[in-house]
């Protein structure tokens, strides 16, 4: 699986292209960890080019979510292909991940907190 990075409005966006399985899932975990090391805690994964995810890939995603919580960060996903969405639905991972139909909607949700 290929991964590319970009940034917009303080959110690190990772574009994934390929299959999310054991090896690519591990690589993704490493990539996300490096982002946390750089203190980038707002991370968005664009899955528009991910057509397949298996159990190992799911396990990696769950690990990434736990890591995000430990760093008090925020992780969002968007553009899930129908099969990937189906897997997330069956496993009810839709309850622990913030999933948006499009990247634009996901990025719009990153409002800064305003306090007095």
């Amino acid at each position, binding site marked *: 699986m290929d991964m590319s990075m970009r940034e917009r409005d303080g959110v690190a966006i990772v574009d994934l292209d390929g299959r999310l399985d054991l090896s690519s899932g591990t690589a993704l975990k490493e990539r996300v960890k490096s982002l946390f090391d750089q203190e980038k805690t707002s991370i968005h994964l664009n899955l528009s080019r991910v057509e397949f995810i298996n*159990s190992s890939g*799911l396990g990696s995603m769950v690990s990434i979510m736990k890591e995000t*919580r430990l760093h008090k960060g925020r992780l969002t996903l968007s553009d899930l292909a129908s099969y990937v969405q189906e897997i997330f639905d069956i*496993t009810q991972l839709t309850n622990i991940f913030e999933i948006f139909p499009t990247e634009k909607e996901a990025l719009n949700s990153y409002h800064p907190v*305003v306090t*007095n």
Partner: protein
Amino acid sequence: MRTVIDRIGELLSLLQSPDFYEREEAVRELGTYNEDEAVAGLVMAMEDPDLGIRELAANLLTQMQGDIASRLLIRFLGHGDIGTRNLAAEILVKIGGDAVEPLIEDIDNDDYDIRKFIVDVLGLIRDPRAVEPLCEKLWDENGNVACSAAEALGEIGSNKAVKALMVAVERVEDARIQAVEALGKIGDPSTLETLYGMLDTDDPMILYAVLEAIGHIGQKVSVPKLLPFLDSKDDCIGETALMAIVNISLANNGELDHDLPLDKYASFLFDGIRNRNRKLTEFTLGRLNHWYGSDIVESLLDVVDSVDEEDQKRISEILEQAGASATKLILQKLPAASTAAKLIFLETLQQSVDEEMVRRLLPFARDQEPEVRRKIAQVLGVSGWPGAIEVLKKLAADAVGHVRATAYASLGWLVAEDEIDFLFKGLDDKYPDVRDSALGALIVVGSPTVVEKFSADLNCDDIERQRLAVSALGKIGDPEVVGPLLNAINHPDASLRKLAIISLGRIEQVDNVQPLILSLSDESTAVRKAAVSALIAIRGEQAVADIRFLLDDEDVWVRYHAINTIGELGNEQYAEYILPYLDDEQDVIKIAATKALAQMGSTEAIPRLNQLRQDKNKDLAEAVVKAVSDLEEIR
């Protein structure tokens, strides 16, 4: 021969009958006539000793067209009995537009009570024809009539009354307050300067009216004029000024260009929420993005039960943004909170749940409300804390199905490898959503042990369990499932064979494709088609040689699928395989071949395609035209 008038005369006599039913029937029948005499009879029936008959007559009168009923009813506005006067007024309001002219004609009645009633009724009818006569009544010698005229003009809301009201504000002391209120309801911004000028009044009643009116007019420029009153020592004045600012804010999509000292008015605002005041609720929740006073979070937690579901969600979002300070307070309030509030609080906590928080939430797994237990199960799963597993197992044995379902899903998220046997028990639950959750959890876990157990299920006696196993293995999708799925290709049930093949095609990393190649000759067309797709997915163009023979399959849809699949490879070298099918006896095959040749970029096919341009099958002709056009672009 009896005429209608004769009959009405009889009915009018019956209105005097001592018998209730006779009088009632008479009233009903009078209501069927349009003659003036019948209308007069109904009006007389409004004096009947029986309330039911009076109301029946009133209802029938409201349905009468024309002004005769109105004229007769206006006389009743001066009746000795207050109930009859009120009833007459009520009917006139219901009659509406048809009553306006008769009312205006009698607006100068000698009796001031009647004048007041007329003015009140005209205000309630809200017909703009009444504006001018009502403006004149602002100068009525009777103060009550003048007040009512001002109120009525406010109800009608016409700009045409503004000039008269502005004069009344200055000169008619009895109606000053009502005139100010009316200006507010009309909402004309040109009156603002006059109203600003009245803000220095010593009369608190006038001040309240002016502040309210400014608020109703709703212009943002008024806010600086109102701000000083927020510091008033008189709470009523301060709250009235704040309410005016609230109205202005809501009239401008929540935009205000000024900071507000809302801490001082926190009680007022949150009491408004508790009392379900829509405006105060909307304003307060809208401002909270800019206002986190020290007690605000606690106040928000207290009003959760007082707002509707949509506002509860807003409160939850605000609490999430408040962060740690809200979390601490929520945990304190949780034990005594209502069920609805608990669910909101838990939803908020879920966003930032950690191990320490989970420990404090564990007791709520025994809450008497199933929805709370279900939510706790979800929060425990989201926490990712392995220490929650034992509690989740208890919740997975809950008496309520959807609690069990959520508990199973959460066990999967915790990747509870040690609990695989427990998760498999969930597949035998009586409720489908529990079984689905258990399946989902096993897919997430997806370990070699899980694969082993599902593989064993492929050989069990229960066909549905076998189907579940094939589906689960396909969704687990790890390399370990390939072997069992290849075995499933030999299952006696065609639908299971198909399911296994589809899964293998998705997994792609299949070394031994021989079973799939054999499936190309399966007795089931669905299986053959699935095998075509799977082989192409796994082997790419190398599979063409394997599937080519299906271009002549006995089933037209298998042939169709084979042509499409080869076409989608987009490689012109396979065009020679497809070209002959332009002559197939089945049009649907010709269409598939046409599209496939275009996808392959086979420009050499153009002359042959052009021969089909005029085919009598319009779908084919259209497909050919498009294909040739696409190919011409390439050439």
